[in-house]
């Protein structure tokens, strides 16, 4: 297990941007009315935000970052690191982070690159920017995390269509001698095809067949350019791996579970998170949910949940947080950090 600590790092601010357009799963006609009720009660997702045509994940992240930089009043010249975590980039080539560096008017002395990760992406992204800042005393970093997953799914697929939603987030991280973050990051590529878009890369380039729709079972119709998600296997994965990952981090870093104010989980599925919460023996009030209103926004769920559910506490108090992301890859990780009265911009809707 990759358990490690990164010193001299603090989280300074957070912002998020979601599309205004909202879909209601009560109107999801691919399944019966009774099944819609069961889905909303069990999985926990009622509303989903859907980006308009032409709006990308980088647009949502750019809007979030602009707002955050203005609220923080940061000198953009001081930002040395820009990392964009996404699975829905603007182009296959070049890296979208270069476009964001230009749009955000950051210095040419800012390093920038993309990271292709989904649900674990926020925790991984925090570890990457924190590591890079180690050799840059006084340096500042922007971690932009977002996806427009609604573009990757088939609306004829009941196993993905009612789950996914779009969002972009921005997190400000800076060098600080008084804080540190502890991580436990893991990977298991054996199950790489549990969540996959099989065509469109260079293993299976786009062909005429990529557009052929296949009915895998009643209510599950998609083509190979659309996301396949094996819900049961991912559920088993989460039950098997997430609690041990967190327990190992806390044990190795000698962190008392009771001192943690909030456990912020990737918002995949309420039944899944509740199962993990019970395994960890964590009180329900310590586990915030944004699922009902915002669905599964891929890598953005953790910062989005922090912003919409913990904003008041984040801006006014010192908090001990445990963040946990898990999914596509399969890739998962958790981190423990302390925040102290950080800047949290108001949620932006465009």
């Amino acid at each position, binding site marked *: 297990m990759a358990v490690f600590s990164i010193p001299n790092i603090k989280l300074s601010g957070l912002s998020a941007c979601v599309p205004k357009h909202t879909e209601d799963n009560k109107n999801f006609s691919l399944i019966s009315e009774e099944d819609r009720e069961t889905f909303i009660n069990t999985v926990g997702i009622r509303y989903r935000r859907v980006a308009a045509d032409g709006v990308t994940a980088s647009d949502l992240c750019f809007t979030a970052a602009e707002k955050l930089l203005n609220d923080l009043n940061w000198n953009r010249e001081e930002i040395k690191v820009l990392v964009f975590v996404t699975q829905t980039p603007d182009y296959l080539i070049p890296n979208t982070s270069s476009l964001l560096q230009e749009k955000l008017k950051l210095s040419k002395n800012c390093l920038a690159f993309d990271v292709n990760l989904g649900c674990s992406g926020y925790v991984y992204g925090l570890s990457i920017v924190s590591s890079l800042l180690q050799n840059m005393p006084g340096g500042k970093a922007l971690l932009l995390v977002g996806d427009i997953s609604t573009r990757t799914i088939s609306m004829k697929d009941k196993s993905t269509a009612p789950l996914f939603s779009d969002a972009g987030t921005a997190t400000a991280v800076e060098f600080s001698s008084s804080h540190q973050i502890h991580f436990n990051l893991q990977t298991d590529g054996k199950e790489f095809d549990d969540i996959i878009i099989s065509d469109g890369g260079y293993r299976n380039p786009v062909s005429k067949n990529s557009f052929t729709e296949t009915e895998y079972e009643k209510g599950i119709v998609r083509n190979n350019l659309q996301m396949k998600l094996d819900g049961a*296997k991912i559920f088993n994965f989460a039950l098997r791996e997430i609690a041990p990952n967190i327990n190992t981090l806390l044990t190795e870093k000698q962190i008392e579970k009771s001192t943690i104010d909030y456990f912020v989980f990737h918002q995949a599925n309420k039944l899944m998170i509740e*199962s993990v919460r019970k395994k960890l023996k964590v009180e329900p009030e310590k586990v915030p949910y944004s699922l009902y209103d915002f669905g599964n926004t891929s890598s953005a769920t953790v910062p989005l949940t922090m912003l919409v559910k913990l904003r008041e506490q984040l801006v006014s108090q010192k908090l001990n947080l445990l963040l946990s992301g898990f999914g596509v890859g399969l890739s998962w990780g958790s981190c423990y950090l302390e925040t102290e009265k950080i800047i949290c911009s108001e949620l932006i809707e465009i």
Partner: protein
Amino acid sequence: MLLEEFVEKFADCFNQTSAAAFKPETEFKKLSEWGSMLVLIVIAMVDADYEKVITAEDLKSAVTVEQLFEIVKSK
């Protein structure tokens, strides 16, 4: 681990089907409510109540509630 108790817990996973419909010999995949959501709910129930992990394949291979009980017991 008792069969009777398992049948009860299995029945509790369902919302729309009457508890009276569940017996050890019930072929649960023939119930109109059965579907992908119930696969997750049953996996979660077995994990929480019996601390055992069953997979979608296990649920596929069982025809009756009793057969599923035997699979859970063997884990």
